[in-house]
């Protein structure tokens, strides 16, 4: 009996031991597997890095299905507790939709914010000029809209060159933006029942655009500005008006890794160079469309902040993607300072045409006849002819190229031969003058003030102009650049628009970044910075940065050449428009690089800047910006040369279908082209972030049928 019992106990013991051993082995195997996986992953990352590839992991794209990614991210990210927030400083450069909303929200959360703008007030940022509206997937019209549909339209509109996870997040938070703005007192247009009204915009089959007359950008910006003003009043945001950032200060942490820790800015009133420290730097400085000199951007809009980030190692992504807006008022002389945009909504009722006969065009160009003198049968409604399904409402890039094609063929309708007609006579007949006036009155009035011609009687003249830049500083899912502690939001980053932006999406992206994305994601970075004490701006890194800025200014002031800044900028604009404009070829782009190099030399040896550097000096400000535009222009040409395909705002004439439509090369160019700075006058290195579409099927855009 006892024997059996003993035996049983012994067996049990052995069995237990075996079980333990098996468990241990199992654990060891698992551990080994994990290690192997880790090694594999590390090897992969390293190989990728070596091969200049950015993997989804490096871009910090969260795991999981598309619609869960943002939730997953928020659920697992690090946060900063209120007591620590008070100890952390954040610099925000820019006060447009992205900058103002980010500064206000960060301050509301409890961070100390230093906010900079170059204008005399944060309310003047160029977001204010956006007219049409802002998209959101509210589906208030019950016309079948959804977050997915907004996501899909945006991806498709961008010609499948945007990052899926980012775009989906953008569509997801779009609804919060509308709620937020209404709560701030933004007076969106409403229906008689008191609910919000929507209008439709290009590239969508639903009405999802919220608007406030033709001044949506203004109203949204004033909303963000009021939130910002509230925080300035409370002392949580320190506002620096008329200050221009001239450099970023990098300081090494204890591991020897460089982090953005402040900026050098020039007080534009006194000319003094000032230093500012922060635990993180957020740049929201807008696009670089003014490289073309003539654009719809504001006079002071510039790409210098982006270039400073680029020089410190932040990648410049897709610089060649620039949007050309088809409905701008044509150029009227060499003295012209900027181009004025008229809302895309005009294409809802206006019909675009040029004469069928070349001799009619010649007479128009000489001013012998007017548009209304040409009979109906002699008009070529070329968009309706080429794109029967979408007609005058084709996307911006398509409409712009078609206008250029006609003008290049000699059918332009004004004295420069660079204009087409936008005609409302049919709409006036159909709807009556009153209805047309009600819908478009303010735009007609603006046109009449500028051109001195009554658009009710004679067709308006329009021509494409540079409007928005989809390219910009590369950021990961957290909106952090490839430099630690340096974030980039709004138009300044390479954003969510791929190769082409849909109407009413710029406002959406700016506010999404500023209100709802960056204030979360930046905490994931700042959570690790709570132990970093505020640093003195007397540190050698600040000294060095300030000296570099001062040296650059001194160098410029010393040139004392013969040419004004604007004259060189205009020349750059012409090079850009002629060689890096709407239709690009390998040859034109190579020529552009050559010409820009020569112009850069001319600039650095023959520019004349009057006045002194240590006082208010507009010409110096412009010269500093132009120095960077010259670099951006070159970068745009290099990128355009590299991208041997046509997509969205980038059209390479070698890559088009037989009908003259854009021809994408998905197998070769489905990536984000990130350019890494290698030093002054050295070629940048290309780093690719492949765009593997996991969730969306790529199609060719078709607006014919």
């Amino acid at each position, binding site marked *: 009996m006892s024997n059996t019992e003993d035996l049983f106990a012994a067996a049990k013991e052995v069995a237990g031991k075996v079980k333990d051993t098996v468990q241990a082995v199992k654990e060891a195997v698992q551990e080994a597997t994990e290690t192997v996986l880790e090694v594999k992953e590390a090897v992969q990352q390293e190989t990728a890095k070596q091969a200049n590839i950015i993997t989804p992991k490096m871009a910090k794209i969260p795991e999981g299905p598309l619609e869960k990614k943002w939730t997953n991210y928020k659920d697992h990210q690090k946060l900063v507790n209120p007591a620590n927030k008070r100890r952390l400083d954040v610099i925000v450069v820019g006060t447009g939709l992205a900058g103002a909303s980010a500064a206000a929200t960060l301050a509301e959360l409890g961070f100390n914010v230093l906010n900079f703008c170059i204008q*005399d007030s944060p309310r003047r940022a160029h977001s204010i000029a956006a007219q049409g509206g802002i998209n959101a997937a509210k589906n208030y019209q019950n016309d079948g809209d959804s977050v997915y549909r907004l996501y899909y339209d945006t991806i498709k509109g961008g010609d499948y060159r945007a990052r899926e996870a980012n775009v989906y997040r953008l569509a997801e938070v779009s609804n919060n933006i509308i709620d937020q703005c209404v709560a701030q007192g933004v007076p969106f247009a409403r229906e008689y029942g008191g609910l919000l009204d929507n209008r439709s915009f290009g590239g969508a089959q639903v009405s999802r655009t919220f608007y406030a007359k033709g001044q949506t950008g203004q109203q949204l910006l004033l909303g963000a500005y009021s939130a910002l003003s509230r925080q300035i009043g409370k002392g949580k945001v320190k506002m620096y008006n008329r200050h221009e950032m001239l450099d970023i200060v990098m300081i090494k942490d204890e591991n020897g890794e460089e982090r953005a820790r402040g900026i050098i800015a020039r007080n534009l009133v006194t000319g003094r160079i000032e230093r500012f420290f922060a635990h993180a730097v957020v740049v929201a400085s807008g696009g670089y469309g003014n490289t073309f000199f003539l654009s719809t951007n504001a006079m002071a809009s510039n790409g210098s902040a982006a270039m400073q980030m680029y020089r410190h190692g932040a990648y410049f992504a897709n610089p060649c993607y620039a949007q050309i807006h088809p409905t701008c008022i044509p150029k009227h002389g060499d003295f012209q300072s900027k181009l004025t945009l008229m809302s895309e909504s005009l294409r809802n009722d206006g019909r675009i045409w040029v004469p069928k006969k070349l001799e009619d065009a010649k007479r128009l160009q000489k001013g012998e006849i007017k548009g209304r003198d040409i009979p109906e049968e002699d008009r070529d409604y070329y968009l309706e002819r080429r794109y029967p399904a979408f007609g005058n409402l084709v996307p911006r890039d398509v409409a712009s190229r078609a206008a250029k094609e006609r003008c290049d063929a000699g059918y332009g309708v004004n004295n420069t031969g660079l204009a087409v007609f936008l005609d409302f006579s049919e709409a006036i007949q159909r709807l009556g003058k009153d209805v047309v006036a009600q819908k478009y009155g303010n735009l007609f009035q603006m046109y009449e003030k500028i051109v001195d011609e009554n658009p009710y009687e004679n067709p308006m003249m329009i021509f494409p102009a540079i409007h928005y830049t989809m390219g910009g500083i590369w950021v990961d899912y957290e909106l952090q650049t490839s430099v630690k502690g340096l974030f980039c939001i709004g138009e300044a980053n390479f954003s969510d628009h791929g190769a082409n932006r849909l109407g009413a999406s710029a406002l959406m992206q700016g506010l999404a970044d500023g209100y709802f994305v960056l204030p979360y994601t930046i905490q994931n970075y700042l959570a690790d910075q709570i132990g970093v004490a505020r640093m003195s701006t007397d540190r050698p890194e600040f000294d060095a940065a300030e000296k570099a800025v001062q040296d650059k200014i001194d160098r410029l002031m010393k040139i004392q050449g013969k040419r004004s800044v604007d004259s060189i900028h205009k020349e750059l604009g012409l090079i850009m428009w002629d060689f890096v404009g709407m239709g690009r070829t390998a040859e034109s782009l190579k020529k552009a690089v050559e010409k820009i190099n020569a112009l850069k030399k001319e600039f650095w040896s023959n520019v004349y800047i009057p006045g002194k550097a240590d006082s208010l000096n507009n010409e110096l400000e412009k010269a500093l910006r132009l120095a960077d535009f010259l670099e951006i222009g070159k970068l745009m040409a290099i990128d355009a040369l590299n991208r041997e395909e046509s997509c969205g705002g980038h059209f390479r004439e070698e890559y088009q279908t037989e009908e003259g439509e854009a021809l994408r090369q998905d197998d070769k160019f489905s990536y984000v082209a990130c350019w890494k700075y290698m030093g002054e006058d050295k070629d940048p290195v290309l780093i690719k972030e492949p765009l593997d579409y996991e969730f969306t099927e790529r199609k060719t855009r078709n607006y014919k049928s």
Partner: protein
Amino acid sequence: MDQYIDIKVRVWRQAGPKAQGHFETYELKHVFQGASFLEMIDILNEQLIAEHKDPIAFDHDCREGICGMCSMYVNGHPHGPDSAITTCQLHMRKFHDGETITVEPWRSRAFPVIKDLMVDRQAYDKIMQAGGFVSVNTGGVPDANAIPIPKPIADEAMDAASCIGCGACAAACKNGSAMLFVAAKVSQLNLLPQGKAEKHQRAKAMLQKMDELGFGNCTNTGACAAECPKQVSLTHIARLNRDFIGAKFCD
């Protein structure tokens, strides 16, 4: 039809905030009437730069009449002799051959001159900081359609909100009063249900700040509304008065 004209431009030059200012007259030949007023100033500045003289400093940015940065007092009018526009939208066809055009900065104690035609308008920002907002943080707000707003109210709020903060109202006012600016913001927010909760507080705080900053007392001359590039109505001032007096009686 637009022609080329020869003009003289009489411009206020002032080296700095404390410097003594004076007028200087420049001749400008062959100016196209299709050019905007600021483009004419650009041409003049190019001419000055070519002569190695200091160009005229002036504020400008969007050049499409919405940012509110441009601010010139041309021939006795803020934003010049045309209605419902900003200086950047003023065109040379409003002037004739041989004309002498006088260009001055905004003149108001609360808008000190920085240089030439550039003035400091931070006073407007300070008024905004005192109460030109709805006290709501990002997130945690109700659905946008939760509170219906009658269209006439929304439209009137929009009319008030179209103010661009350029300062023409205070510049035009013989009393140097900023009432139209303050009233437009108070009116916009006090009309909407979202802003009503702080209605009294807002009217008091913003007006107090305006008085404190050295703006004058409104005497309803209506010059502000007459010169306003966005045609903001005087009735908003009445609403501010009403809300302010109401607030004081509620105290």
